[in-house]
């Protein structure tokens, strides 16, 4: 493990060493990890040189957990304990999962999110995803020779708040510091746009293993602005496999297959799909557990016919996104294809026909998302490249509240640029009402029952007033990860309640910390040493940032303020030298508080400076 460099007190640590950061594409079928090495984004392969990690986790009877190709190879032998496509279950309740009978798992309906019954106990999709992410983290740390400072994890643009929160929880559970959740099509646009110097309006068509996203982006000199996004978070390459699987059942007149045979035929279906990308027809053979032999011939034409409705289903969100962006198909300069499923010729043809131009397929559709995430991770970690760019992303689904009569009142409309906050005032319904229930929803439909329920909380302690006299301001704040926090405040009395919208199943911080320490203790690492290293890394980057800020804007502070800040910085340096985790964290916290007004003034100055320059230029 690489030793951390600690700058001598008083000396600026900048230019610091290259901070190790990665981009992770946590896919339904396959996952990847990439990083920027000597200025170029590159996917990190495993020790056998393979880039992809199948998103498959097997809980073996010897208590070991295996991930990837080895787990995939054993999936039809042990289907109930080998979890594939777990991404489909992230942040989902039992009622959300279409066709439960289709997968070989036994589900239990835990509050909010399903759990899978395995021999290793009930596993939440968050835990299974964390196993995949942990494997990628270990791959990256072994390959890069050091601990990661952080990771950018990609999510489908159409993921709702519950699915995003679940992904972030999984990353934290895997011991990753999440620099940002990044939308997959946006990540692809970075990789594509920076490579091709693209300008104009582009569409990213991202058909992954289990999710479909479409984003419309305006690319202008270093700005990637998402104009609109849409999709279907349960539609992907898996569904094409399933169409072939159903065709096999029909052709061979099969009924009531066991889990092993189901898994076997799904695997054969996937292989047939891949073969049909290159060939006009393919043979499907399998021997079922009762000895019955399957031997079928599937042609491209038949495959196209049985999968046509799936492709049509992707074109609806495309139309919706174009409509939201208020542009027509003819205004689009290029369509970037992302996701392994876009290799299917019939998908490329349908998209080409829709836009009246052949789609862009010059980037590896499996890797482009991870590469874009790595480029963004590199910048967020503070390894500034030469090129500066800006990502302006949006929320995919409207956010709102339940009002009288089971109706949804939208507070933040879909496709609003994030971060964003919006407040709305409500009042009491009855005389003397002292509490108000706040039910937070996500979705486009009018009825509460048709939207996703994200969280509920109660604002209590409202002073008794006549109906309609209280003024309750509910504020929604969406951060740059697309995650929501809600505050409710009674304006006359000042009573306040707030919630970070963790859906009811969401793991609490304590639970994550406990599970994390369990897993670290399990590999006999020294958790205290790790905590100290993390505290020092954070403290160092705080000191670096302040040194740089003082170098350029020290004039914003008077002498007394400067002295306070210097003292707080020195205290933190002393704590680092003394290697006391507790003191480092306490001093970091104090320094953060002491420097907030300075940060605000600098922010003001920078924005005014930038805009003044602009106004002189343009007006």
């Amino acid at each position, binding site marked *: 493990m690489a030793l951390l460099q600690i700058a001598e007190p008083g000396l600026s640590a900048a230019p610091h060493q290259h*901070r190790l950061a990665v981009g992770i594409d946590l896919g339904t079928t396959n996952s990847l990890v990439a990083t920027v090495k000597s200025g170029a984004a590159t996917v990190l392969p495993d020790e056998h040189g393979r880039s992809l990690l199948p998103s498959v986790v097997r809980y073996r009877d010897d208590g070991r957990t295996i991930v990837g190709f080895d787990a995939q190879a054993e999936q039809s032998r042990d289907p109930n304990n080998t979890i594939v496509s777990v991404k489909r279950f992230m942040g989902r309740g039992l009622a959300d999962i279409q066709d439960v009978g289709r997968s070989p798992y036994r589900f239990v309906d835990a509050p909010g999110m399903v759990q899978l019954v395995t021999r290793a106990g009930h596993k939440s999709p968050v835990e299974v995803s964390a196993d995949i992410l942990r494997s990628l983290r270990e791959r990256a740390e072994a390959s890069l020779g050091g601990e990661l*400072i952080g990771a950018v994890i990609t999510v489908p643009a159409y993921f709702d708040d519950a699915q995003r929160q679940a992904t972030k929880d999984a990353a934290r559970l895997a011991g990753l510091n999440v*620099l*940002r959740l990044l939308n997959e099509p946006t990540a692809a646009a970075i990789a594509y746009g920076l490579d091709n110097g693209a300008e104009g309006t582009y569409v990213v068509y991202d058909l992954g293993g289990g999710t479909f996203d479409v984003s419309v982006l305006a690319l*202008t000199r270093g*700005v990637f*602005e998402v104009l609109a996004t849409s999709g279907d978070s349960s539609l992907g390459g898996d569904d094409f496999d399933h169409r072939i699987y159903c065709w096999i059942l029909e052709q061979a007149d099969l009924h009531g297959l066991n889990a092993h045979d189901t898994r076997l035929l799904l695997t054969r279906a996937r292989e047939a799909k891949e073969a049909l990308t290159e060939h006009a027809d393919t043979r499907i053979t399998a021997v079922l557990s009762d000895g019955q032999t399957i031997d079928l011939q599937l042609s491209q034409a038949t495959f196209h016919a049985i999968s046509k409705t799936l492709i049509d289903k992707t074109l*609806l969100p495309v*139309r*919706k996104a174009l*409509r939201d962006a208020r542009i027509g198909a003819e205004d689009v300069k290029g369509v970037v294809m992302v996701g392994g499923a876009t290799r299917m010729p019939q998908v490329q043809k349908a998209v080409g026909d829709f836009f009246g131009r052949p789609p862009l397929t010059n980037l590896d559709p499996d890797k482009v998302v991870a590469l874009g995430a790595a480029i*963004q991770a590199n*910048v*967020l*970690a*503070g390894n500034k490249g030469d090129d*500066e760019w*800006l*990502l*302006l992303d949006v929320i995919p689904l409207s956010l709102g509240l339940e009002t009288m009569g089971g109706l949804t009142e939208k507070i933040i409309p879909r496709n*609003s*640029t*994030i*971060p*964003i*906050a*919006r407040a709305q005032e409500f009042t009491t319904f009855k005389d003397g009402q002292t509490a108000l229930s706040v039910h937070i929803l996500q979705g*486009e439909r009018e009825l509460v029952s048709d939207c996703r329920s994200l969280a509920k909380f109660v604002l209590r302690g409202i002073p008794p007033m006549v109906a309609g006299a209280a003024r309750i301001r509910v504020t929604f*704040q969406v*951060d*740059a990860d697309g995650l929501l926090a809600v505050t409710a405040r009674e304006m006359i009395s000042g009573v306040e309640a707030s919630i970070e919208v963790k859906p009811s199943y969401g793991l609490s911080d304590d639970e994550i910390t406990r599970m994390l320490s369990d897993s670290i203790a399990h590999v006999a690492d020294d958790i205290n040493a790790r905590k100290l290293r993390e505290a020092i890394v954070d403290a160092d*980057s*705080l000191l670096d*940032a*302040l040194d740089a800020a003082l170098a350029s804007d020290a004039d914003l502070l008077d002498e007394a*303020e400067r002295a306070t800040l210097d003292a707080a910085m020195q205290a933190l340096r002393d704590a680092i030298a003394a290697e006391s985790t507790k003191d480092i964290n306490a001093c*970091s*916290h104090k*320094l*953060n*508080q002491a*420097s*907030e*007004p300075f*940060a*605000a*003034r600098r*922010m*003001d100055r*920078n*924005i*005014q400076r*930038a*805009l*003044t*320059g*602009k*106004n002189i230029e*343009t*007006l």
Partner: protein
Amino acid sequence: MTADLFSDFQQDHFALFGLPRRFALDGAALDTLWRTAAAQVHPDRFASAGDAEKRVALMAATRVNEAYQTLKSPLARARYLLMLAGVDTAEETNTSMPPAFLMAQIEWREAIEDARHGHDVDALERLSRQLRQDMCAMEDELGAALDERHDHDSAALLVRKLRFLEKLDQEIGDAIEALLF
């Protein structure tokens, strides 16, 4: 020391971007100013900074986006100008409308209903285009009322009318989606 937090961000949306306080607006210039401001304060710029800077950046970026979205939308911009002038547009309470306008509304709704029942997405798209033209014309009127005649009463009425049209546009959008999905 916290008293001067966001001294400049407390300005109104127009002043934040250094734009004159009026309805007429160069949309492309606003876009450029917004991107310039967002580039300074976006949380991505502060991902490896301390918590204080992260918090401040989140607030500042939110503020910049709010200002941009208010100014970008003609309806929101007009409402905001009236609010700055101390005029309440009373969109929830004042529902009185000229009879001719109400008649036109009924006709619009009937046309949308017919297209919806006939599952005619193309007809809905046509209605949407036509409605957006009507909205543009109304926005021109709004500009004249606010910038030239400084007639707050008729501007407030136009805001209420435009709100009606925006709701219609939303209805058409919902109908199209309901037919497509």
